[in-house]
Structures are given as structure tokens and as C-alpha cells.
């Protein structure tokens, strides 16, 4: 961990605050769901540790992490898309 990562971390905190302060409340559920999918990037953490796993226990835990992370990222984006595809304007008859 070096200061570069800390720097990026601090900037990201402020960007996160700025981004969401302008969201109308009708989009809060899709937004929560969308950001939920974004933290599914933990899947990559799971892939990296499982790739290096040396013991059966490490492989088992890494495997569970990959399954969880994969469900988080794929399920998250899909469920958000399903919510959002319903936000349509009135169809002209």
C-alpha cells in the first residue's frame, strides 16, 4: 500500500459524494442496485486468490468467493437492467 493508492482512494470518496447528490429519489433503488453490481468487482479479488490457492482449504474458500462474487456482479447488473427497462415514457397510441 503506497500513497498513490491513498490518493486515489480520497479522490474516489469525493467523486462518489458528488455523483450521487444529484440523483432524483425515483432512481434511488436502481442506483443502489447498480452500485451493488459495481462492488461485484470483488469477483476479481476472488479470481486472483483462487489462482494462487495452494491448499484444498484455500481452494474451497476461493471457490466460494468466486461464486459469490460472480453472482453479485452478474445478478446485480441484470437485476438493475430489468428494473430500468421498465422506465419508459408513455407510448403514443
Amino acid at each position, binding site marked *: 500500500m503506497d500513497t498513490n493508492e491513498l490518493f486515489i482512494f480520497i479522490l*474516489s470518496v469525493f467523486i462518489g459524494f458528488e455523483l450521487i447528490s444529484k440523483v432524483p429519489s425515483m432512481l434511488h*433503488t436502481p442506483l443502489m442496485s447498480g452500485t451493488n453490481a*459495481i462492488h461485484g468487482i470483488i469477483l476479481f479479488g476472488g479470481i486472483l486468490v483462487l489462482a494462487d490457492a495452494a491448499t484444498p482449504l484455500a481452494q474451497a474458500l*476461493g471457490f466460494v468467493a468466486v461464486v459469490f462474487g460472480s453472482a453479485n456482479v452478474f445478478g446485480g447488473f441484470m437485476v438493475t437492467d*430489468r428494473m430500468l427497462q421498465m422506465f419508459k415514457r408513455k407510448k403514443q397510441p
Partner: protein
Amino acid sequence: MSTLVALIFIGVAVLFIIGIKLLSSPKTARIGNLTAAAGMFMALLALHQPGGPSVWTQGWSFNYTLIAIGILLGLGLGAAGAYSVKMTAMPQMVALFNGLGGGAAALVASQEFLRGAQRPEGIGAPLAAAMQFATIIGSLSFAGSIVAYLKLQGKFEKPHTFPGQHLLNGLILLVILSLAGWLTFQAVGGNAVTGFVVMFFLALFFGVAMVLPIGGADMPVVISLLNSFTGLAVAADGFAIGNLAMVVAGTLVGSSGTLLTLLMCRAMNRPVTNVLFGAFGSGVAVGGAAAGGVVGTVKPIQADEAALLLSYAQRVVVVPGYGMAVAQAQHSVRELSEELGRRGVEVQFAIHPVAGRMPGHMNVLLAEANVPYDQLIEMEQINPTMDRVDVCLVIGANDVVNPAAREEKSSPIYGMPVIEADRCKTTIVLKRSMAAGFAGIENLLFYKDNTRMLFGDAKASLNALVAAVKAN
């Protein structure tokens, strides 16, 4: 990190930021979600071992077979959940996915810790601290989200409290933090591993103990908070394994999620500490119900008469609440609004920020029923115009239309912004019975002179209204 990987990483960060930005407008929200997904895909392409080769150029091994199976399994489970879930059960699904992410974050940090602690030199304090953080927050988020999921599914929905609960929770937290502090500087050897495992399970237990006392109706705030927790845990994992994409993505989720949580609490006029430690339903109901100020009588109305009022109104505002979701009445509401629209009545939906079980819950439900989103008006915009509304139709909403929030200084919800339904010419309340709302307090609206109560199941009442309007 090679220049190419660095450039890809910058692209990933930009895609996530633009994605969240586009998610903030109804017109672009769907593209925003896809943009963030594209960022995720790009990050996968650039995935490399910290300081080492890309995962794509390493030789195939049994572990990679496991990875492939794991991804496909997760994809299957995630897709099945995402496409089978009913729109009314959406909050649960988000809670569940969030819990899985938190669990994954805790497992990744645990792996790194256990491996590092078995090396003779152990783990340096900054990395060890990041791993503790990710493990504690991740397992807390996992356990808490599962409890939140079960609560929203209707299992043990009531707050569970017992004397000394805060003290016990405080003690557990203290033990967890002490262990984490010790492990940060002594992350080496068998004792550290034992201590770590104890900490892991205590954090799981704490997640359960933290969410159990909170009532089902407060779950949106809890899920939003746990969502930001998971983001922070992922960011800490990013520090621990040296993956910048994880740091950025996790932090963005953490900070935006924290702000969203605060916005939700502000809309309910309650400090976030009150939600987490208050056990609202049990504590306040006693004092609230006793508060006086109920004047007037309840005046029931039949569907035929209500339909007449609606058909000859110029402007109708519908206030949906959790009761509409429970009764699955959103399609009937849309039918009624279309039927009225055909007769030249202007129909709008007034959306309270915390109506339902999640912010935006009502929007999602009504969108599912094909109500165009330009008919959905937020509270701040519609309140100044309520004087000019002929009929206000309150469907399964209670506390969010209670005028006590403006009139009764002694009321526990005094000061909470509400939709001012009582200012309309006539207010029709669809309600199953005279039971109090989630806050356990009398709703003064039901006793106002211009309020009529249409008792019964919301869906049945609405269908009766549709039939009666058609017959007019």
C-alpha cells in the same frame, strides 16, 4: 504495472464514474448501467497478479478450472435470481446480492491474511489493517444482508430486542476491534490465525445482532448502509491485494452509498443512529399512540360514490404506499389511471421518498405496471399544488401522509416531510382497517372533514373503482 494496463485501468475508472452519472437520469439510466458493466468487462481483460503477469497469460491449471466453474455457477445463480424475482421482491434481491459481495470480500481478505500469516515474516501493519477491515466489514455485511433478506421475506419481521442488547453488542464490537488491533501488529504465526478465525465468526454474529433489532420497515436504510459497507470492504481488499480498480470501484460505492443512506434517513426525519439503535417500533409506539389531538370521526365511503368523485374530477393525485405493494395492486392502479385519463382527468402519482420498502420502490412498481414515469411527481414538486387537487387517492400509504408531522409537536414523526394529502378538496383513503401504520401512531388524516375511507383490500377496492368508473 505496464503502461497498457494503467491506461485500461483509467478507462475502467472513467466508465464506472460515467455509469453512475448516467444512472442519475431516467432517460440515460439504462445506458449508465450498461456502461458500468462495460467497465467491469474491461477491468477483467486487464486483470493481472499484483506486480506480476496478466491472468490471461498464465498457464492453465486446476485452479483455473475451478475459477471457470465458479464464475459459471455464480452467473447461473445470479441470472436465475435476477430474472425470476418479482418486482415487489426487488429490495430482497438487492440485499441478497449485496450479502454475497460482502461474503466474497471477507473470504478474499481471509485468504490473503491466512497465507501471509503463515510466512515467517508475517504481514506488515498497513496491509494487515486493510485485511482486518475487509474481513470484519465484509462478514458483517454478509450476515446483516441475509437477516435483512429474511426480514423482507416476512420471516421474523418484528424487531427483536432484549434488555442489555446494546451492551452485549457493544461488548462484541469491542472484542472484535481489540482482536483486529492486536492482529494488525502481530499478523504472524498460529495464534494470529486462531485470533483471526474467532474475529471472523464474531463479525458474522455481530452482523446478525446488529440487524435483528431493526424493524422490517427500516430495512431499506439498512440495505443501503450495508451496500456502502460492502463497497468499503472491497476497496480495502483492493489495497490488500494491490488492485487499483477494486479500490476505485469499492470506494465509489462506499461513498455514494453512505450519502444515499443519509438522504433516506433525512427523508424520514430520523438520524441514522436512531434507525440503527432505536428499535423504533417498540420504543416510541407507546408514547405516540397516547398523543391526543384526534378530532372528528371516520367517514367511510363506498366504491360507487368514490368512482363518481373520481370521474368528475379535473385533477387526481394518487399517493401509493407499501400497502399497494403488499396487495400487488399496481396494475389495478394503472388501469384506473388510464380509465380516468380517457375521461380527461389529469392523473398524477405523488411519490414520497421513503414510501415502500426502499427509496424509489414505488417508482419501480408503477413502472412495472407501465405507468409512464412523467406521471410520477416527487413530494417537493407536488406539495405546493395540492390545494388545486380535486381528489387525492391514498393507496396503502399511512405515515407519509400523516398531517401530524406538521401539526402535532408531540408526535414522534413531527417534522418529517409528508405529502400534504389533507389539503386536497377530497381525500379518499384505501385501507384494510383502522390499524396504525409502521410508526404505531394515529393518522390525523383519517379524521379530517374532507377525508373518506374506502375499507378493504387495495386491489379489490381498485378493481371495484375501475368497474364503477367504466359504468359511469
